């Protein structure tokens, strides 16, 4: 309290320049005189308010009946048109049925119930001296009667046992899922796995990938997997064919493309959205979720946005029948970063 510096605090009336005739602070003038409503003194106004409440209740009943009629009168046949009619009619009926009960109650309260303001006194949360002393005495007595103060080992044992007791609950959660292992780093791609169209899984002939085109790709064996969505979430790939000269030379990646057909992971290295937008003119790939932008001409290096790492490239070649195949798995884990990724 000593730190509170309120205006005029510490001043007495005697300090005042006019010797205390003017009060230091304004006094609360009290509640202004109550203003009566029309319905308080005019019986006709009261009657009118009563009628208005009744009209609202009537409208509510109409709304409810309208809802029930609409429920049976508007059948659903699987088209969007009937769905829309059904939704609007049901919504209007039920909505008005409920809304007008509310307005009726509020209108009744505001026009016909008394509107003179009432006072309640407030009491501080803090108990009185006696209450606090009694409470303290009870706590002290309980402490003594429990005897824990005199027998500290019981207290220690209790705390220890109680602290251990929840551990089984934590242990029980262990089987929520398997340990990660290398699962995030391994995909279905492997030497000789054919690149196939998403979602039909038809293999892709290198000759069908014309200059400037882009294909959404999955491993041909995707649907043989038990959890194909899990596999797809790691293995989805985009292939694009460009003039090989526009792509920067990188000696580590020589032979990873097939005549300018480049395969890159489609899973964003930021938080895993599909990098689904390809800009043919600039050779940029854009993630629609957070706008990370990858430049194909720099092996999908990040040129804008919140991702840090380039999209992993899938080394590809052509098999005997002319279909595109992977040379191996990705050489680094695809998708968002994680601690053990390295």
């Amino acid at each position: 309290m000593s730190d509170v510096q309120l205006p005029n605090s510490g001043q007495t009336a005697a300090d005042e320049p006019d010797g205390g005739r003017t009060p230091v602070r304004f006094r609360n003038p009290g509640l202004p005189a109550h203003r009566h409503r029309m319905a308080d003194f005019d019986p006709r106004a009261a009657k009118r308010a009563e009628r208005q409440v009744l009209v609202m209740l009537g409208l509510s009943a109409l709304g409810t009946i309208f809802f029930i009629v609409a429920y049976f009168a508007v059948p659903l046949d699987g088209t969007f048109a009937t769905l829309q009619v059904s939704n609007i009619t049901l919504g209007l009926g039920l909505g008005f049925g409920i809304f007008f009960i509310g307005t009726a109650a509020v209108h009744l309260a505001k026009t016909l119930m008394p509107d003179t303001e009432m006072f309640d006194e407030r009491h501080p949360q803090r108990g009185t001296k006696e209450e606090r002393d009694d409470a303290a005495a009870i706590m002290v007595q309980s402490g003594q009667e429990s005897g824990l103060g005199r027998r500290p080992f019981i207290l220690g044992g209790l705390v220890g046992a109680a602290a251990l007791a929840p551990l089984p609950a934590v242990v029980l959660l262990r089987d929520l899922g398997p340990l990660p292992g290398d699962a995030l780093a391994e995909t279905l791609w492997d030497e000789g796995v054919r690149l196939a169209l998403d979602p039909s899984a038809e293999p892709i002939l290198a000759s069908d990938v014309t200059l400037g085109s882009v294909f959404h790709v999955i491993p041909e064996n995707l649907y043989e997997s038990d959890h194909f969505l899990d596999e797809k979430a790691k293995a989805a790939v985009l292939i694009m064919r460009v003039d090989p000269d526009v792509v920067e030379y990188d000696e580590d990646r020589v032979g990873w493309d097939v005549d300018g057909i480049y395969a890159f992971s489609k899973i964003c290295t930021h938080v895993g959205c599909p990098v689904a937008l390809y800009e043919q003119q600039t050779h940029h790939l854009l993630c629609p979720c957070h706008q990370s932008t990858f430049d194909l001409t720099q092996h999908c290096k990040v040129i804008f946005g919140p991702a840090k790492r380039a999209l992993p490239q899938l080394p590809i070649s052509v098999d005997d029948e002319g279909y595109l195949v992977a040379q191996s798995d990705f050489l680094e884990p695809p998708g968002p970063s994680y601690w053990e990724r390295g």
Partner: protein
Amino acid sequence: MSTPAGSTAAFTPTSRTARLSAGAADYLDERIGAARLVKGFARKVFPDHWSFMLGEIALYSFVILLISGTFLALFYVPSMTLVEYEGSYAPMYGVTMSEAYASSLNLSFDIRGGLLMRQVHHWSALIFVAAIVVHMLRVFFTGAFRKPREFNWVLGVVLAVLALAEGFTGYSLPDDLLSGNGLRIIEGVILAIPVVGTYITFFLFGGEFPGETIIPRLYILHVFVLPGIILAVIALHLALVVAHKHTQYPGPGRTNDNVVGFPLMPVYAAKAGGFFFIVFGVIILISGLVSINAIWVYGPYDPSPVSAGTQPDWYIGFVDGLLRLMPGQPEFTLAGFTLSLNVFLPSLVVPGLMVMALLAYPFLEQWVTGDNREHHLLDRPRNAPVRTGIGVMAITSYCVMWAAAGNDLMALAFRMSINDLTWFLRFMFFVLPPVAFVVTKRICLSLQRKDRELALHGHETGRVVRTADGEYFEVHEPLSDTERWLLVQHETYRPMAIPPKAHEDGRKPSVVERVRANLSGFFFEDRVEPVTPRELAAAQHHGEHEAIEQPTGDEAARRELTSGTPD
């Protein structure tokens, strides 16, 4: 019922209805002490103000969520087992999808009123979170979190966080393409947690993303665990409102020791009860007329496709926006481990800090003011300029983050480069909040000066009078006592004295002492104090036409002494 309000005369039952009610009352009283309950609560006074209805909207939308959610749960199947869709929506016929998505489609196309209930559920979720946020802003800007209500503020922050969690778990349940991509982002975010991220992901999803268990797990959280906790916290929140009695705005007749308003029975019950039906009705009308989240357009979840312009529900937008604003550079590899600060900071650290700041604010402000009294009269926001400035600053940074979540849509609508727009928002994230603080604080101080001006000189009448001496002045009409009270009733804090280099006993002031004094200076250095009766008397003494400069503090007292002497 038929007795006049306030009458305490003994009630003698006469009619048949009255005799029946008396019998029922007697039965209940002898078993559950109903008389004491009625006597204690039925005439409890609640103050009236539109801004007190914001919390009510939040409460009512939660009730509506429970009602509509129960209906949805009768038909929704929380399973990721893949099935072929065989419902009546032709474009999806034969498509492989999870049972969750198929049952969500059935709710729209095969269950009459199902779409309406889904819309009611979704709309009331949006409104639930919005009402909580606006209610929190009201509580913040009026200082309703001050002693003794600090714990209730904390409970409110907990409710806000739980509401976000409820919203997110529910958002994912239809298992459509949009919500699946949302889950994918969550997976990426959890993976970015240092050391344990991968393990949490595998435990949460029961293995790799998306797996086959996440939907049933989110479902039990969404329909049982989280609502149960929310209900319990709401009960505590309301119990404390009853225990503290509601705050009230300052005004004639309202003091820190009373509460002025209307009794629970019948007025408040009718108004608040009626308001529940109004909120419910309006939400149903919106749901009937404005359909959102047309899941049948998106298709089932598949990790490969995505639609451009994807947006989360509005309340997750600020996190998504911050994820978009954050540049990628702060991801690095250390001793063979990857630390993705580009994801971890915006998605988990910053929201965590925001919640911490919310939890800490009431305690921080009390520490700065050192004011240990109970406060039941609300502040007008202008009378707490620094607090109001801090609040507007927080809103501004929130809005920048939130706007960033729509950067792609804005770039499209205004034909701007998305890169330029993102850079612009990155700068605004740092520039706008401080600007908002300074501007708001100045506006508050100006409004206080306006209040002083009005209290001292009254209303301008527009009537210009020429005195016999040829002097012109405009006649001002003085305020009535009740009118003036609102302008002069508040108290202002003064900054603490900066501690001396050494205390009298030679002890050096601690860092804590100095921080506290500096914060106190930050909060209260610039202030406009309310008009005192002396100042008003002086103003009237000088004549209504003469402008009085607004003196404060000691200067005011000095000037008073000189100007108070007879000419």
